[in-house]
């Protein structure tokens, strides 16, 4: 009896000891606390996954998007919950900024990309460098390239490719039709009998003007919004001479809205060449957010509309 009693006492003591220990241990550091909270949330995650499971295709639960317009399309499709990372150029919508940034879209680091463990990468055409892409493909991470383009059809193509990659082609078709219609409306509204000559100024560092030539997204959006590119005869974004600016005689100057450190109207009027253009005389200077204007994503109808309104307003 006494023997038995002693054992049970010992057992009780051990239990008591065990029960006391966790409260005695002060969690060291924030990470331990976070881990504990995370562990407590596990049942929640599991339930969520079990609930969502049957409605999901199995590929692409951890999606990395590369390219501002691609990320925007994923948000527009309502699939942003599946995003786990983005590149530096993906700055819209605001919620995208909270995702881990894997760096500039043309200078990716393979290990950086793999470290966030994507099971699907949707990348805009031209993502790279090629050797990084090859390594990622060798790690058997599915890779989908989205074609880039600067015309009305480009947005539809992008949406279709992204939606197919995410396994939601129906929703993609709906969104594409919706955006196509909005874009067609915006373009119809934008049509102008005497299209203004628009010069897109990318930068004006030290008074030197970098302007958009042919085959640029700036030219694409200017055309859709019922204008013509004032700068001709070169491709891409180039530094242009002051005489070329005078010869081009733009009716409107278009710039990116950089919030805070933008070039002021006074800077433009004071510039020896820009100041002499019809645009400066009428203060016809339009600023729009860069990704909205040049992204060729779901907000392009909005960009066309805002640009054409601005063009009409400054033309008077």
């Amino acid at each position, binding site marked *: 009896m006494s023997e038995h009693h002693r054992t049970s006492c010992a057992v009780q003591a051990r239990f008591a000891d065990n029960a006391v220990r966790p409260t005695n241990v002060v969690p060291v550091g924030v990470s331990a606390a976070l881990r504990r909270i995370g562990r407590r949330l596990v049942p929640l995650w599991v339930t969520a996954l079990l609930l969502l499971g049957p409605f999901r295709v199995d590929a692409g639960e951890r999606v990395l998007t590369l390219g501002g317009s691609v990320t925007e399309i994923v948000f527009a499709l309502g699939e942003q919950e599946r995003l786990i*990372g983005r590149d*530096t150029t993906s700055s819209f919508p605001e919620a995208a900024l909270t995702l*881990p*940034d*894997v*760096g*500039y879209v*043309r*200078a*990716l*680091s*393979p*290990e*950086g*990309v*793999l*470290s*966030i*463990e994507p099971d699907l990468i949707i990348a805009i055409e*031209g993502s790279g*460098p*090629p*050797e*990084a892409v*090859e*390594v990622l493909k*060798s*790690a*058997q991470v599915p890779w989908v390239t989205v074609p880039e383009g600067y015309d009305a059809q480009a947005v539809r193509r992008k949406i279709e490719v992204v939606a197919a990659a995410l396994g939601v082609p129906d929703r993609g078709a709906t969104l594409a039709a919706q955006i196509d219609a909005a874009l067609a409306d915006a373009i119809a509204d934008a049509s102008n009998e005497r299209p203004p000559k628009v010069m897109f100024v990318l930068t004006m560092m030290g008074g030197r003007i970098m302007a958009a030539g042919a085959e640029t997204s700036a030219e694409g959006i200017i055309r859709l919004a019922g204008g013509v590119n004032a700068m001709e005869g070169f*491709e*891409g*974004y*180039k*530094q242009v001479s002051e005489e070329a600016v005078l010869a081009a005689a733009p009716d409107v100057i278009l710039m990116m809205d950089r919030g805070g450190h933008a070039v002021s109207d006074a800077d433009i009027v004071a510039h020896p060449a820009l100041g002499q253009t019809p645009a400066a005389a009428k203060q016809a200077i339009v600023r729009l957010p860069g990704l909205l204007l040049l992204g060729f994503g779901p907000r392009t109808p909005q960009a066309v509309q805002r640009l054409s309104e601005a063009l009409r307003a400054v033309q008077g």
Partner: protein
Amino acid sequence: MTLAASADRNSGLLGDRRQGARATLLLLAVLLGCVSVASLTVGASGASLWAALGQGLRGEEIGLRERVILFDIRLPRLVMGILVGAALAVAGAVMQGLFRNPLADPGLVGVSAGAGLGANAIIVLGAFLPATLQATLGYYSLPLAAFLGSWITTLLLYRIATRRGRTSVAVMLLGGIALAALTDALSGVLIYMADDAQLRDLTFWRLGSLAGATWDKVALAGPLIVVALAAAPFLARALNALALGEAPAAHLGIPVQRMKNIAILSVAAAVGAAVAVSGGIGFVGIVVPHLLRLLIGPDHRYLLPNAALLGAVLLLAADMISRSIIAPAELPIGIVTATLGGPFFLWILLRNRSLLDM
């Protein structure tokens, strides 16, 4: 300051420093081992070398992702870091010895400018290459063009500076500046032609990175660098003698012209290959040899092997910073080497001012 006083403060400046140099060599070898292991262990992802080794030893299958990260990303990157770091540091030491100029670096023989021109040309004009050639070369066209660019520039400069079988170091120095100006101008034309994306590519290339390391690139650049580095020990005695001047070196029985040929060609091969696969990584070629001269003295027999080890250690350490500081993105390594190397070098200079003034 008298010589005695300064010798007092820098004990070890006079007398036999071979002992110290050997100890440094051993220390650096151990350090390289440690940094190598660390470089396999540290990265943006949580992939662990030890876990993978354990799994391998137990005969378990290592996950594909871990395998790719460890063996196709980190390991080639480690090997390339060692090769490139050693190549840049040894080439710097050889150039400084050959030109008897503390500012000399491989850039002086046109390597960097030529490689830059080659890289610019392929980034901007690569699309105009015949389609079959593009298909065969793939992304090796860039390192190949950079290597060809550096090699052609160096050989051209060598021809310019060599008359009647004698290479004039002075002509090479000044000719190198002229040639670099010319190649930079050509690069400027290409930069003007480049579009937005190409401009970003050019900038990133100039800042250097080991991120693109693949086994194929190691196989391309490795043999050249190893062969060139293997030539360095044979140059050590000659470089020591050359410190007295070319004529005294010749009187000491050093085949000066042959030695110049070997030095210039091996530097061009090693640095050309290094720059081709990693882009422009500054400062290693200057900092490492000077640091070592302060530590172990100017004897090239010890300077060159020590430089190879320290160059490798520094580049691996810089690479670890470059890939983890803004993970999952990556900072170009040229930025890291210059940001850390610049102030550190200044500090060394200020601390040892009296020593350098002597």
